[in-house]
């Protein structure tokens, strides 16, 4: 069979799937509120993974504090919609609150991105982890605005089918956005940054501007998802709005599915979800399900370095393939490409050569 046949099959089944998702609430008992709730949460985590993939996958900047945008978006919605914030006691309607959440998160992400997007590799990852904790504690002490550690409650008036459709349409839009973005010049410039940032710079790509732009976009998407979550959860405090697990899920899902691909985050999150449901429903595995999940994650990372997307494409690596990195740029191998450097600094010595002069990235910055 040739490629176009695959494509047709793929498109037809995707269309079928979307149709099924659209008709889910009409399936009576199978489309009850519980199912809708579960699928809504799954869709939201897929959306988060897609937005993480924009910076982590396309651009190669692995964000370990991504859940901070979820938290900020959730808190913006919470502050606006709850009457427990002393400074903003009015209860805003949902739509304006969500719009403000998205733009406010985008603004913060833009400012943070200007600082952290100059860092390379692991330093960017750690800085984002730092920002995550930083903002969580800021929310905790921002007394009259956020009601401190006590948290905020929002009136529970949710229409679950409607909410399901809103989430579904938004996530479908995100899938399209991610697909479309990859085909634009902007998307191409992101990939170029991932592959060879200095080269991209030399070819006249404004790398800093593009990086900050995609980071802002990624933050805005997650911020909106966080706001939507706050509305449906009806309660938030710093510890349930800022949760490391959300970052970990997005990273894990995207890695499992295939880093830097459009379908990767979707497949990976669904896979994770299915895995959890499977383990979770086995009574005998209730106590061990996290152990099993850990073993599986380790196995996938070790033996399927390109994720399930790689598997679908028939690329299964059972051996270390690190030396082939230069040519394989769909997988995680490419995500973090930096120079190896010497680390033990406590030798009596200063550093015999000045690495900065030789390799501009070695001082931890990329430009």
């Amino acid at each position, binding site marked *: 069979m040739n490629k176009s046949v695959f494509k047709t099959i793929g498109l037809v089944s995707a269309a079928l799937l979307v149709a099924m998702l659209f008709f889910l609430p009409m399936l009576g008992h199978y489309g009850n509120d519980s199912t809708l709730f579960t699928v809504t949460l799954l869709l939201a985590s897929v959306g988060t993974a897609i937005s993480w993939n924009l910076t982590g996958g396309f651009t190669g900047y692995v964000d370990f504090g991504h859940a901070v945008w979820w938290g900020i978006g959730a808190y913006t919605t919470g502050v606006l919609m709850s009457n427990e914030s002393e400074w903003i006691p009015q209860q805003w309607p949902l739509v304006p609150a969500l719009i403000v959440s998205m733009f406010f998160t985008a603004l913060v992400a833009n400012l943070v991105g200007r600082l952290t997007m100059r*860092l390379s590799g692991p330093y960017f990852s750690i800085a984002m982890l730092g920002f995550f904790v930083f903002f969580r504690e*800021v929310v905790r002490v921002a007394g009259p605005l956020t009601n401190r550690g006590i948290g905020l409650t929002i009136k529970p008036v949710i229409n679950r089918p409607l909410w399901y459709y809103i989430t579904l349409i938004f996530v479908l839009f995100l899938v399209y956005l991610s697909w479309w973005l990859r085909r634009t010049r902007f998307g191409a410039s992101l990939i170029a940054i991932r592959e060879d940032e200095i080269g991209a710079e030399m070819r006249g790509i404004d790398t800093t501007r593009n990086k900050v732009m995609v980071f802002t976009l990624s933050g805005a998407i997650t911020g909106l998802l966080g706001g939507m979550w706050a509305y449906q959860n009806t309660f938030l405090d710093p510890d349930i709005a800022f949760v490391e697990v959300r970052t970990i899920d997005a990273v894990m899902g995207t890695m499992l599915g295939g880093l830097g691909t459009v379908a990767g985050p979707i497949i990976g999150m669904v896979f994770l979800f299915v895995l959890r449901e499977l383990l979770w429903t086995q009574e005998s595995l209730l106590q061990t399900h996290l152990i099993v999940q850990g073993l599986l994650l380790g196995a996938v990372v070790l033996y399927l370095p390109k994720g399930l997307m790689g598997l679908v494409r028939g690329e299964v690596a059972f051996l270390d393939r690190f030396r082939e990195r230069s040519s394989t740029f769909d997988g995680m191998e490419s995500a973090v*490409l930096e120079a190896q450097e010497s680390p033990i600094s406590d030798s009596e010595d200063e550093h015999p050569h000045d690495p900065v002069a030789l390799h501009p990235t070695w001082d931890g910055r990329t430009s």
Partner: protein
Amino acid sequence: MDTLVQALINGIAVGGFLTLMVLGFSIIWGVMGVINFAHGEFIMVGAYMAWFARSEWGVEPLYSALPIFLIMFVVGFVLQKLVVNKVIDRPHLVSLLVMFAVSIIMSNSVKLIAGADFRRVNSDIQRGFWELGDIATIPRKHTVVLVVAIIVLVALQTFLQKTRLGKSIRAAAQNREAAQIVGIDIKWVYAFTFALCIGITAMSGALTSTIIPVFPFMGPPWALRAFVITALSGLGSVKGTLGAAMFLGLLESLVATYAPGSSGSQLAVITAFGLLVVTLVLRPQGLFGGLRPVDAGGH
């Protein structure tokens, strides 16, 4: 009683145990380019072993620390051979995820075996305080950890500087391929380094089990602190780790003591992580010595 002196003493006390806790993390990253996400879980396992020794056989953590070091040295060696070796040449994200998997497996296995209850290790040696005249008090349990931390630091520094194996480790860290060319068995060096660091980390868990609460999911906050301190100190820097841990301990203590209002402790956390971000952005090589990116993969 003098508030400032007390704040300084508390800061140094915390800095002492942070040093011991973070050392292993920093060296593994520095030498091998592996970010040990399961770092906190090794602390946890060490603490549980000390708890077990104390509650079953009545052995003080100070005395069980050395056997724990040896046991975990072996465990680290095996783990390195079985798992870490496979990811050492891959980008740091891969090793990070594998170690993340290890951390999930470890914490949940311990929970399965020992239950999720909080444990606290009683100690007769690490208990109470000394009075420093009328000025301040010095907690004994922290002092013990600080002394051990200094002994470990000196021993480690000497080992890295003077012994053949230590020099090999430094060479491997500086330039893996050159080290291989001059005949250093890189796999052995890595295995030894990893084992050593896991041993030290578990030992730190054993000693601090008298200070901090012990439970299966205690690890992540300590791993996060290890990140902060390593970013401040520079990778694999022994002296830098001491400096950064002390700095962080003092800073947190001073902010917690002198911050106005009732949120001093939160402000201390904000300061610590704010500092991390500022350091990375303004002075990516760290405050105490050269921080240079290490990533697996080589050239």
